[in-house]
C-alpha cells in the first residue's frame, strides 16, 4: 500500500509545497510551462518578422492574437477541472452542431469551406473541436472501467469518427488528423488493448486503397504524389517542397543569419510565414536553430506529460496526455511535411506559424494543462495529514 502511494507521489519527490508552488496554485499557473511558452512566442515572433518580410502589419496582428491567446490561457486555467468534465459533452455536441453549420452556411477559400462568419468575426469550428474532442473522450472514458471494453471502444470510435468525418468533408485534412489523433490518444492512454491496436493498424493499411480511390480529393492525392516524387513537377505542385528543402538544406549547420534567408526573402519559398515557417527558421538559423527549437518543444512535451502524471484523476491524466501528445503531433507533422518526410497537410508549426485562431486554441489547451497542474490535491492531503 505504501509502495503504491510512493509510486503515485514519485513525480513530486523532493518537492515540498513551497512558496512558489503555493503561488502557482493560487494563480493556476505553471511557471515552467509559461516560461517555455513565452520563449516559443519570442522565437515565433522573430522568425515571423523575417518570414513576413519585416511586415509590421503582420507583427501587430500576430501580437494581438498572442495577447488574446495568453488571456484565453489564463482564463481557461481558472476553470475547475471537474467543471470541464461536466461541460465536455456540451462543448462536444455544440462543436458538432457548428461543424454541420459550416457545411451548410460556411464560407471558405481555395475550395475549402472552413469558417463560420459572425458579422465581422470569422472562426473555424474545427478549432473548437481540437479541444472539445479530447475533453469529451477523456470525460467519457474516465467514467468507465479501464481498460475500456469493446463496447466503449466502439462508442469512443463513433465519437471520434463523426466530427472527424465532418472536418475531412470541409475539406481540411490537417485539422482532421489533429482532431482524430487527440481522441485516439485518449483511447490509447486509457489502455486500449494491444490486440485492438494491432487490428486497427492492419485495418488502416487495408483501407488505404479505398481511401485513395474514393475518399481523397484530387489535390490531396496530388500532395501525396508530390511528396513521393517532388521532382516530377518542379514548377507546379513540387515547387513548394523543393523550395522548402532548398531553404532548409542551404541553411547548413548555423544558418545564413537572421533576416538573411534568401529563399524566403526573395519569395522562392511559398507560405514561408504560415505552414512553411520552419524552413525560414532552418535557413536563417541552421541545424542549431532547428535543434534548439526542437529542444524547447521537447521540454514543453515533457512538462505536459509530467502534468499528466500528476493529475488527480483519470480525466485530468487522459486530457493532459492527449493535449500534450497532440502538441507533439503538430510539431512532428509540420516539421516532417516541410522537410519532405510527410505529405503536405495544412498543419501549422505551433506558436511559430502565423495564424490567429490556431494559436488561441493551442494556448487554451495549455490553459487546460495548467488547470490540471494546479488542481487542489484532494487525494494527497489526507495522506499528508495521516
Amino acid at each position, binding site marked *: 500500500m505504501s509502495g503504491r502511494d510512493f509510486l503515485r507521489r514519485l513525480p513530486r519527490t523532493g518537492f515540498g509545497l513551497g512558496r512558489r508552488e503555493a503561488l502557482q496554485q493560487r494563480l493556476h499557473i505553471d511557471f515552467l510551462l509559461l516560461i517555455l511558452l513565452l520563449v516559443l512566442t519570442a522565437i515565433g515572433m522573430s522568425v515571423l518578422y523575417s518570414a513576413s518580410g519585416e511586415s509590421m502589419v503582420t507583427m501587430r496582428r500576430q501580437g494581438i492574437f498572442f495577447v488574446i491567446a495568453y488571456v484565453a490561457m489564463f482564463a481557461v486555467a481558472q476553470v475547475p477541472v471537474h467543471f470541464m468534465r461536466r461541460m465536455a459533452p456540451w462543448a462536444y455536441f455544440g462543436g458538432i452542431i457548428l461543424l454541420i453549420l459550416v457545411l451548410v452556411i460556411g464560407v471558405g477559400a481555395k475550395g475549402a469551406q472552413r469558417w463560420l462568419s459572425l458579422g465581422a468575426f470569422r472562426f473555424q469550428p474545427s478549432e473548437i473541436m481540437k479541444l472539445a474532442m479530447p475533453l469529451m473522450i477523456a470525460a467519457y472514458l474516465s467514467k468507465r472501467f479501464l481498460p475500456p471494453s469493446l463496447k466503449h471502444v466502439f462508442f469512443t470510435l463513433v465519437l471520434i469518427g463523426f466530427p472527424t468525418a465532418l472536418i475531412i468533408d470541409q475539406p481540411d485534412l490537417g485539422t482532421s488528423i489533429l482532431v482524430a489523433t487527440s481522441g485516439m490518444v485518449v483511447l490509447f492512454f486509457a*489502455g486500449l488493448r494491444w490486440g485492438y491496436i494491432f487490428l486497427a493498424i492492419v485495418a488502416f493499411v487495408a483501407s488505404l486503397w479505398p481511401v485513395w480511390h474514393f475518399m481523397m480529393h484530387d489535390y490531396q492525392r496530388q500532395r501525396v504524389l508530390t511528396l513521393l516524387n517532388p521532382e516530377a513537377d518542379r514548377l507546379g505542385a513540387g515547387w513548394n517542397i523543393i523550395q522548402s528543402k532548398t531553404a532548409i538544406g542551404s541553411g547548413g549547420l548555423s544558418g545564413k543569419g537572421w533576416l538573411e534567408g534568401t529563399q524566403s526573402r526573395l519569395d522562392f519559398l511559398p507560405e514561408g510565414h504560415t505552414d512553411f515557417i520552419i524552413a525560414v527558421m532552418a535557413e536563417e538559423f541552421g541545424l542549431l536553430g532547428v535543434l534548439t527549437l526542437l529542444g524547447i518543444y521537447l521540454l514543453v512535451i515533457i512538462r505536459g506529460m509530467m502534468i499528466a502524471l500528476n493529475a488527480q484523476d483519470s480525466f485530468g491524466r487522459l486530457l493532459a496526455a492527449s493535449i500534450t501528445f497532440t502538441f507533439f503531433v503538430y510539431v512532428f507533422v509540420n516539421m516532417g511535411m516541410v522537410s519532405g518526410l510527410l505529405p503536405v497537410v495544412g498543419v501549422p508549426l505551433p506558436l511559430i506559424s502565423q495564424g490567429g485562431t490556431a494559436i488561441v486554441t493551442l494556448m487554451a489547451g495549455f490553459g487546460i494543462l495548467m488547470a490540471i497542474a494546479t488542481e487542489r490535491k484532494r487525494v494527497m492531503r489526507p495522506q499528508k495529514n495521516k
Partner: protein
Amino acid sequence: MSETQHFKDYHRETRIFWARLAVMSVLMLALMGVLVYRYHHLQVVQYQDYATQSDRNRIHVQPIPPTRGLIYDRNGLLLAENRPSYTLSVVRERAGDLEETLKYLQTLVEINANDLEKFYKLMHQRRRPFEPVPLRYNLTEEELASLAVNEFRLEGVEIDAQLVRHYPYGELFAHTVGYVGRISEAELTNFDEDQYRRYSGTHSIGKTGLERYYEDILLGEVGNQNVETNARGRVQRVLERIDPKPGGDLHLYLDVRMQQTAMAALAGRRGAVVAIEVKSGGVLAAVSTPSYDPNLFVTGISFADYRNLNESIDMPLYNRFIQGVYPPGSTIKPVVGLAGLDTGFTDARRTINDPGTFRLPNTEWVWRDWKRGGHGSRVDLKQAIAESCDTYFWDLGNRMGIDRLSEFGSHFGLGELTRIDIPNERRGVWPSREWKRTVRGQGWYPGDTINMSIGQGYVLTSPMQLAVMTATLAHRGVRIRPQMTERANGKFLAPIIEDRFDVAEAHWDAVFDGMAEVMHGTRGTARRAAQGAEYRMAGKSGTAQVVSIPQGAKYDSEALKERHRDHALFVAFAPLEDPQIAVSVILENAEGGSSQAGPVARIVMDAFLRGKYLLPEEPEAAPVARQPVPGPQTLARRMSDTDGVN
C-alpha cells in the same frame, strides 16, 4: 464487489497509464530522432547541394554590353554614334499570355503594324532563353511614364535604356561606314564559344562597311554582373560587377566635306567617286549613288522598306565603288603607255600613222578608232594619251604582247583586290593567258590583247581599283593599300605598301605629260573640265560599253535605251608637280567620260586642294545640281562607231 473493483481499477488505471506513457515517450523520442536525422541530412550531409541550389535560384549572371566604339571623320566629326534610347521589350518566357500582353501594351503605347511585324520576326528567330525581344524603340517620356505606372501589371515586360547606333549623316556614309543590325539567326548559329560570350549582352553586330570590318575593335569587351533576383525574376541587387570595356574608336581619312562634295558633284546621277590621298593611301571620299539611309537597318528594317531598296532598279544597296566592276576603257591607257616605255616597245618620240583603223596582220578583223579618219600621221605618246588615240595603243599592245602587258598592269593592282578595309570587294579582271585558260578554257588570241590595250575585252575594274591605279601612277610606282581608317582604337594604322616598282623617271614624266595634256592641252579630251584651274592636273577619260556592238553596226546612242548607254569614266590626279590626290569617277550610262565624269573629278580635286567644298547647306552646292543634263549637242559631238572610244 463494485467498491473493490473500483479501488483495484484505480491503481490499475495508473499502472496502465504509466506503461502507455513509457511506450508513447519512446515513440515520440523515436519520431523526434527521425526529425533530427532528417534535418541533419538536409542541412549537413546535403548542405553543399542545397546551398548551390539556393544560389542558383537567386543569383543570375547578367552580361553588361560594352559601348560600341565611335567613328569620326578626319576632322573629328561623328559619323557613327550611340544614342540612348528606351526600348520596350518582352521576355517571352515570363510574359504569360503573349497576345493579352501585347493587346494591353497597345493601350499604353503606340505600337504599329510595322513594330509588331518586326517583333514577331525576331520572336521566331532562335534566341537565348529569357532574352528580351524588343517591341518598340525610342519610347517617349509620356510612354515611359504610363508604362512605369502600370508596371505591376506587366509581367515579362522590360524597359531598358539601350544605346542605339545612329548615323547622323544618313546616306552620305552608307557605303563606307556601313551599318550595324540585330544579330541574325545565321550569325548566331555560326558563333563560336567565345563570340557567344562576347555578344552575350549585345544585340547588334556590324553588317557592312567599316562597322563590319572593324567589328572586333568597335565591339569592346563584355562585362558582367552577378545579380540577385527574386522568384519573379526582378533584380534585387548587384552582388558583383565586372565593368565592360568600351569598344575602340575609329578615326577615318574620310572627310565629311569631301564626301558631301562628291555627292553633290554626282548630282543624283548613278555612279561612284573615289578620292585617295596619294601619299598615305587614305581614302578621302568614297560615294556610291544612289545611296540609302543606314539608320533604317539598325533596329531592323521592315519588309516593305527592304523590298523597296532591294528591288529598286537603281540598286541603292549596291556598293558601286568596290562591287561595281566596269570595263575601264581608255582610263588605263597611261598604264599601257608606261608599260610600252618601260619595256622599250615605244618611247616618247616614237610616232605612228593613224588612218583611223587597225588591222592585225593576216586577219580580216578591223578595229576602228573612235575618231573617224584617225588622229593624223604622226601620233606620239603624248598626243595618243591627250586625244585618247586607240590605234596607238592597239599597235603598242599588239607589239608588247599579252604577257608583258598583264605583268605590268598587275603592279598597279589591276585584277587584284585592293584590300581596302571594308568587306565584299570584287576583284575584277586583268586578264592573262593563264586566266583565260583556267576561267574561259580557251587560248589567248592576239585580238584579245588588242581589246585589252584600251581597257576593253575581258578587263573589268572597280572604281576603287582605278583610284588605286591612278594613285600608284601619281606616286610613281608606289602602290599603297587604300585605307579608310587612319587610327583604330587610338593606334595609327601605318600605310601598307603593296607594291613598289622602278620605272625610269623620264617615262613617268612622259606619261604625266600626256595626262596633263588631256586636261590642259588645246586638243585634250577633258580640257573643258580643267578650265580655270589654279593648279595643273593629270587626267584620263574613259568610256565603257554596256552592250557590245556587232562588227560594222552603227552605234546610235540616241536610239538605245538609257540604261544601255556607255558608262562615263574619269581618273585624275593633282597637282601634277607633287600629286596629293587621286580620283576616279564613274557615271553609269552617262556616255561622255570627259564631258560628264571629268567635271566631277575636277570638283573633288578643287575641294581637296583649294577648299572649294560643295556643302549641301551652302548655295555653292547649287551650280552642280543645276548643271543641265547633257544636251543633244554634247552627245552629238561624241558620236562614234568604233569599239574603242575615248
